[in-house]
């Protein structure tokens, strides 16, 4: 069966003033439909660049990206805009429209898709209910906490009814408890809507908590990829070992305890 997302020989080189940076070097991998796919690696490993290539926010220098069998790099600008409506993205710093209230933020992708205002508002209110923020509909982002802002961003991304959700360090600006609640929300979204999720994180705990599969990046290269259980229990490459072993005190403690048990059970 054709995998849902297929990345083939992806390369991305930046030409900056102080020389060229090969941020992504010949990476190939596949993501199945409904997976929660983690991408881990040290700072500067190329995680963000890789994920930004998945919706062409960054144009690859070479290589192919297939989503549901369609090659993204071969789409016209118009087709790409439509394809992007199907690939949501949430960010470390939320990136909400600061001059719009919560409800209108959630309506934004619906405006882009040309949905009528009334229908859009109704749908947006339902989504705010999903993320448990109905009572903040009229508030402005400046009046919300980080966790609440990320919930708005999630409701906003769901509005377009995407098949894929890309998360670039979506919980890195949040405290452990808020992180846990956001991760639970992502998991619920994955289950309820069957959305394929790609999460970049530097917290191994996040991977253990929600991911089904994981890819390890180092210096722009894909070192290892596979099911979380395999990679975490028996990492094959040095890069993966370093990351998994050096996994210091867990941040999402409670959540991790359960999961490590599972992993241990599996290993034993």
């Amino acid at each position, binding site marked *: 069966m054709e995998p849902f997302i297929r990345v083939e020989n992806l390369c991305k080189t930046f030409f900056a003033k102080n020389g060229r940076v090969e941020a992504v070097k010949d990476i190939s991998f596949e993501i199945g439909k409904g997976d929660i796919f983690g991408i881990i690696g040290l700072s500067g490993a190329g995680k963000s660049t890789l994920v930004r290539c998945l919706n062409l926010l960054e144009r690859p220098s070479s290589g192919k990206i297939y989503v549901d069998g369609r090659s993204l790099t071969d789409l016209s600008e118009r087709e790409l805009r439509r394809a992007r409506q199907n690939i949501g993205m949430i960010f470390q710093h939320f990136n909400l429209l600061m001059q719009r209230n919560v409800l209108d933020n959630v309506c*934004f992708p619906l405006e882009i898709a040309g949905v009528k205002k009334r229908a859009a508002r109704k749908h947006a209110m339902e989504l705010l209910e999903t993320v448990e923020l109905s009572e903040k509909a009229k508030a402005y982002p400046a009046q919300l906490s980080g966790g609440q802002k990320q919930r708005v961003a999630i409701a906003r991304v769901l509005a377009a009814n995407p098949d894929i959700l890309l998360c670039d360090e979506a919980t890195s600006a949040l405290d452990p408890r808020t992180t846990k609640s956001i991760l639970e929300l992502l998991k619920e979204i994955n289950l309820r809507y069957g959305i394929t999720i790609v999460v970049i994180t530097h917290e191994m705990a996040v991977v253990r908590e929600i991911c089904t599969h994981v890819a390890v990046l180092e210096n722009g290269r894909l070192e290892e990829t596979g099911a979380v259980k395999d990679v975490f229990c028996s990492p094959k490459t040095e890069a993966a070992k370093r990351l998994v072993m050096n996994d210091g005190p867990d941040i999402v403690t409670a959540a991790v305890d359960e999961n490590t048990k599972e992993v241990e059970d599996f290993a034993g």
Partner: protein
Amino acid sequence: MPDSATLIMLLEGTCATLYMTLVSTLFGYVLGLPMGIVLAVTDREGIKPNKFVYKLLDFFSNIIRSIPFLILLILVIPLTKAIVGKSYGSSATVVPLVIAAAPFIARMVEASLKEVDKGVVEAAQSMGAGMFTIIYKVLLAEARTSLLVGVTIAVGTILGYSAMAGAVGGGGLGDIAVRYGYHRYQSDIMIITIVILVVLVQILQGIGMLLSKRLDRRVNK
């Protein structure tokens, strides 16, 4: 104390100054706003980088901004005559005022739009928003308070320039100040015109700042 004829003259002068300022600001934005948008969009970090277009507008706006206003006033007289039909009076002054103000306004608009968080623009792109949607619903909407502060500054600056235009028969308060204060040594009338100018600037600035604060949703309230 000025007599009633003088008072009427001052009142008319004030109206003429306001007319020149507001009309020039309006047309200044008709030209300067699109120009500022194009500058912000075609910049290297913009949403549609285009070196040629950017450099062209950049060059053009820098040239006009470096010509002293009094010289510009004289340079554009043929154009003024062609548009307004005469080269003196309030309406005629609007032409050089607009030409001087447009590049300056474009620069302010450009700066305001560039203040918009790159991440928010990127979020819109990731949702599949097109260029015009991003300009209208992200850049202009998110930068609105900064844009309004820009309008306030533009009004103040244009008001000052309009007074300068008075020196060459442009009408308005500047004209009165020059005629009475300089040619006839009636410094009392000159002082009154200055006071009126200061009050006008204060009122316009006050309104602008109040509006931009009112419209800003980034602060808790």
